[in-house]
């Protein structure tokens, strides 16, 4: 296995073909830039507009998508990039390096014996890596059948498969509604939606909400769908435990008091073969952090990239757009992508309407985060044998045993008890370990230490070994 590197140097390399990356690539190309667009999936769309890898399959899930006309317009705009040999599907980017004043995006493509590394060069970068579901542990969450809300949605949108026959949707945030509605429309029985937030929580942010009336309409549509299917929607309600021998069979749900604790006597049991759970999203920051882009902690507690009004990061030539700048949804991601693409192409947008739209959408996102916090009570509901790190099978008890050894934050706990040392590199448990350690020790959480990873996507050692030294590659 070797590395293939083209001598071609693109004006702009866009990493990620979700809403932000698609918008950035299309805008940059429309302004005359030679653009490369790189994505791990076979078809553009990202997680939000996730598309099946096959046309027949795509036809059977088209009705589930929101804003599909807009998606098609964005895809149409990147056709020229594909025709010019700049579209790199099924390329999993694992890191970005610099060589002689250019950036080199290193990606793995192919499987098994066909696996190889490809280097794609560019003068400027737009990083649109997206996000994945944020999770917190609870007793039984490692049973098969407990899935992330995003994973359940990916099965449906990307593969036309309902994750289960009888599904409970739980956690917090507006994303739970389309997941539940999609399942109900596709024939699954949705046994309940359990939203931890109070229905009154949005009331304090009415200004941000009225400037984004379309979003209310979208949410109301999902609520109507759920009502039509007689799906019970409970607020201030939470799944506190999952039960089953080898797979998920039952869930314990409970009502939450205002302080995030469970109301006494409110626990009930619900039969389910799948739980779709999510507590907001975690941005994927490996690539911007590998390049040294400055970060900040957003209102939802996530580490995000610091960008200016042209989506410029702190690193010259590197632009960041979408969820990596703060979780805000597909509409905001598209706006940020348009701005980043134009700036990366060397023609910054002067359209003040777009800049105002970004501000309104960011305010909406801030209101959403304030209305849908992760209720703190989850830490009190952990038992000593609850798994925290799924990869290394680190339980609460084992994590606690690191305290007398001197562990006082997620990073020292990782070294002493191994949470975050496994396959996923703490992507799933990092937030939770950080919160639990902070609750135990009083030391504030450090989102930087749990987000820093040298490899954005795991790869085989042989692939790295086969990579040419950048300096010798430049000479040859």
């Amino acid at each position, binding site marked *: 296995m070797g590395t293939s590197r083209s001598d071609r140097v693109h004006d702009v390399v866009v990493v990620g073909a979700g809403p932000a990356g698609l918008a950035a690539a299309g805008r940059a190309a429309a302004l005359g830039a030679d653009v490369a667009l790189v994505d791990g999936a076979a078809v553009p769309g990202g997680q939000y507009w996730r598309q099946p*890898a096959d046309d027949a399959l795509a036809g059977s899930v088209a009705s589930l998508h929101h804003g599909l006309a807009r998606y098609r317009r964005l895809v149409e705009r990147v056709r020229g990039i594909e025709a010019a040999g700049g579209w790199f599907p099924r390329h999993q980017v694992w890191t970005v390096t610099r060589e002689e004043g250019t950036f080199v995006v290193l990606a793995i493509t192919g499987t098994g014996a066909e696996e190889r590394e490809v280097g794609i060069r560019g003068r400027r970068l737009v990083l649109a890596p997206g996000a994945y579901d944020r999770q917190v542990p609870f007793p039984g969450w490692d049973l098969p059948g407990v899935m992330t809300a995003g*994973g359940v949605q990916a*099965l449906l949108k990307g593969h*036309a*498969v309902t994750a289960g026959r009888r599904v409970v949707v739980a956690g917090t945030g507006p994303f739970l509604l389309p997941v539940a509605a999609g399942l109900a429309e596709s024939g699954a029985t949705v046994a309940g939606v359990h939203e931890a937030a109070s229905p009154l929580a949005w009331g304090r942010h009415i200004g941000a909400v009225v400037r984004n009336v379309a979003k209310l309409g979208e949410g109301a549509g999902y609520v109507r769908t759920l009502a039509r299917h007689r799906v019970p929607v409970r607020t201030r309600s939470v799944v506190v435990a999952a039960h089953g021998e080898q797979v998920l069979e039952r869930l314990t749900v409970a009502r939450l008091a205002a302080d995030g604790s469970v109301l006494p006597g409110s626990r009930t049991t619900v039969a389910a073969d799948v739980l779709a759970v999510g507590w907001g999203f975690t941005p994927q920051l490996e690539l911007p952090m590998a390049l040294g882009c400055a970060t900040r902690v957003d209102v939802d507690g996530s580490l995000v990239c610091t960008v200016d009004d042209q989506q410029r990061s702190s690193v010259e030539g590197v632009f960041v757009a979408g969820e990596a700048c703060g979780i805000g949804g597909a509409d905001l991601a598209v706006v940020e992508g348009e701005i980043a693409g134009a700036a990366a192409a060397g023609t910054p947008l002067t359209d003040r309407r777009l800049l105002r739209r970004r501000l309104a959408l960011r305010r909406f996102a801030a209101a959403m985060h304030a209305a849908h916090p992760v209720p703190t009570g989850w830490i009190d509901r952990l038992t000593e044998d609850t798994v925290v790190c799924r990869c*290394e099978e680190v339980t609460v008890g084992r994590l606690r045993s690191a305290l007398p050894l001197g562990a006082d934050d997620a990073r020292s706990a990782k070294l002493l008890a191994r949470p975050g040392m496994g396959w996923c590199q703490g992507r799933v448990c990092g937030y939770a370990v950080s919160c639990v350690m902070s609750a135990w020790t009083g030391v504030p959480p450090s989102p930087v230490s749990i987000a820093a990873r040298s490899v954005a996507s795991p790869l085989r050692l042989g692939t790295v070994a086969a990579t040419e030294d950048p300096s010798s590659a430049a000479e040859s």
Partner: protein
Amino acid sequence: MTEQSFTFDGRPVAFRSGQSLGAALTAAGVRSWRTTRADGRPRGLFCGIGVCFDCLLVVDGRPNERACLQPAAAGMQVESQEGTGHGHLEV
């Protein structure tokens, strides 16, 4: 619709073009296809998008493939994975 199949632990599982192994197994009612290294606990799909590595299985003899990302192909020999997936190397 074209129906094709791969084998999972020796029995045929149908899939539609474009589906991942994880999606096809889920559609066939299979929930779990891996046991953990330490406690031998069952695992299946969790994140569904390639982040968590819970859904690892053995594809044509290669262990540690992510079922959620690996496209299903006709004639593939897919097996559930125990622990590291390298048990056959143990002496």
